[in-house]
């Protein structure tokens, strides 16, 4: 059983502060991390290999050359192989362009049984790429997986619990399948010292669009976008003083008078 983990490198939003706003954080040279949700994807990919009879884990990322760092984290955690898709023709692509390139790479890697992704990327926040990869490859998607119940390698199926808004859904899916995982599924392991040393030296394959047989013109998004900072809401905080009972009474009065409740 071969497993592919989709790993995106994203800005490190923990570094946002009063002196580093969102647009500044997106600029070159700012700190980057493995998309936090993708650490769970990597962890589950490794568990599928180690506990459920998998053979090989490939970490796959699409991004700029510096995204190799995210792949090195994957290798340090224990992935067997890492592949970066990077091409100037992908600059400014949308989720669909990303999904097309990832789908082409998944085909090229070949014989994947389970493709694991995070639930969303903290930068783009679209929660779209895994569903688009599944749609393009004609594979089922099982999203928001909170627990792997059974992985039946011989029967080529798995049973999982999904965390949905109204409760937990148990689903069986046949392989190959794309899954996305949520935080509850497992605690991502820390890379070991040895793992980090090995990862630092490991070769990372890079594929350009031509290696995937893709034409950059076909990946041009049918949309344009511009980014700006959210308007700072001009809220003037009205402090309500008094004893706790007085504060409570005054607050409830205001909430009712101003029809907030």
């Amino acid at each position, binding site marked *: 059983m071969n497993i592919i983990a989709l790993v995106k490198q994203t800005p490190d939003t923990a570094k946002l502060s009063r002196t580093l706003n*969102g647009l500044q954080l997106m600029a070159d040279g700012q700190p980057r991390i493995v998309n936090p949700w993708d650490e769970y994807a990597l962890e589950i990919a490794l568990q599928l290999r180690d506990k459920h009879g998998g053979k090989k884990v490939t970490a796959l990322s699409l991004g700029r050359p510096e995204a190799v760092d995210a792949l090195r984290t994957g290798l340090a955690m224990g992935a067997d192989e890492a592949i970066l898709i990077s091409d100037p023709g992908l600059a400014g692509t949308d989720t669909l362009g990303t999904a097309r390139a990832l789908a082409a790479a998944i085909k090229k890697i070949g014989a994947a049984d389970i493709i694991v992704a995070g639930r969303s990327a903290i930068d783009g926040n679209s929660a779209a790429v895994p569903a688009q990869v599944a749609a393009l490859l004609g594979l089922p998607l099982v999203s928001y997986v909170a627990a792997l119940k059974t992985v039946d390698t011989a029967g080529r199926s798995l049973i999982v619990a999904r965390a949905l808004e109204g409760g937990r859904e148990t689903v069986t899916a046949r392989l190959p399948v794309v899954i996305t995982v949520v935080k509850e599924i497992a605690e991502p392991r820390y890379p070991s010292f040895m793992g980090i040393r090995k990862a630092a030296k490991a070769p990372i394959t890079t594929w350009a669009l031509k290696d995937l047989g893709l034409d950059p013109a076909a990946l041009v998004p049918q949309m344009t976008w511009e980014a*700006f900072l959210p308007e700072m809401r001009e809220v003037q905080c009205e402090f309500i003083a008094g004893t706790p009972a007085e504060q409570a009474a005054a*607050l409830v009065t205001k909430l009712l008078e101003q029809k907030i409740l």
Partner: protein
Amino acid sequence: MTNDILVWIEHTDAQADTISWEAMTAAAGLAAGTGGAVRAIVAGPSTRALAEAALRHGAASVFAAEDASLAGFRLEAAGALVAGLITAHPPAAFVAGASLRGLELSAWVAARCGAPLAADVTDLSVANGAIIALRPTLAGNVISKVTMPGPSTRVISVRKRLFPGAAEVENATGDITPVQAALAEDAIGTKIVGFEPAAATISLGGARVVVSGGRAVGGPDGFKPIRDLADAVGGALGASRAAVDAGWIPYAHQVGQTGKTVQPDLYIACGISGAIQHLAGMKTSKTIVAINKDPEAPIFKYARFGLVGDIFQIVPALAAEFRKRLS
């Protein structure tokens, strides 16, 4: 190509989810801009009454697919149905609510139809035939303005609680057109074998009021007064990551960048400092009330009302006051 807007009606066992009527409002706004009509898609067995409800909420017509394979929600089955309808009657846009299901449905459909996608949008407009959407990115710290010129179909999911639910009218006419499922059962790679509803607490995502506790609650017992305040106002219970990481309350209650995003009418933060990652999940709440013993706490910069003091005194007093005044 038509100017129509297709809208997905999400439901649970043929009961419309609130977000469906919000999506209907968003769709009606787009249809006003494109000069087309809103057409709803209702999928699942025994959904005749729901299709009629869609007409009463403003759809000009409904595509109704009642095949048993569309019971529950299975992405491939629903996606293939929608993609088929888009191909057969190309609309200017397809709109779904950005629930967990709606997010993946819209993404899947966009990929199948080769259409541009704007996910989880907070605002929509039409100008010169282009659809313009605003969407928060980078944990709400950057707004992305997406322009989709068309004319081919654009796919959009709308964030919860930003568009008002479409009003219901008494008498509505419009065709309910039966349509076939697009996939045979054996072409669908998944089966739903069980569903365990979450405990009947108010879910954070759709709540009108959220009361959250932070590190200051000090322990699992400290959440009792917070929970009691939430009950008194009929709100959902939230928490900061500090409280979740301490193990005082399950992760499902976490609000913020790595938790849930909420947009209630009223958010009451109790003993929460207002870290940027917490703000990412709640700062677009309509009204924020902060209770904190530190008058310099950053949360007060976002709060409409601030109560400086001890949560263990103020929170119970507030619960009592709400009970008195709301009954």
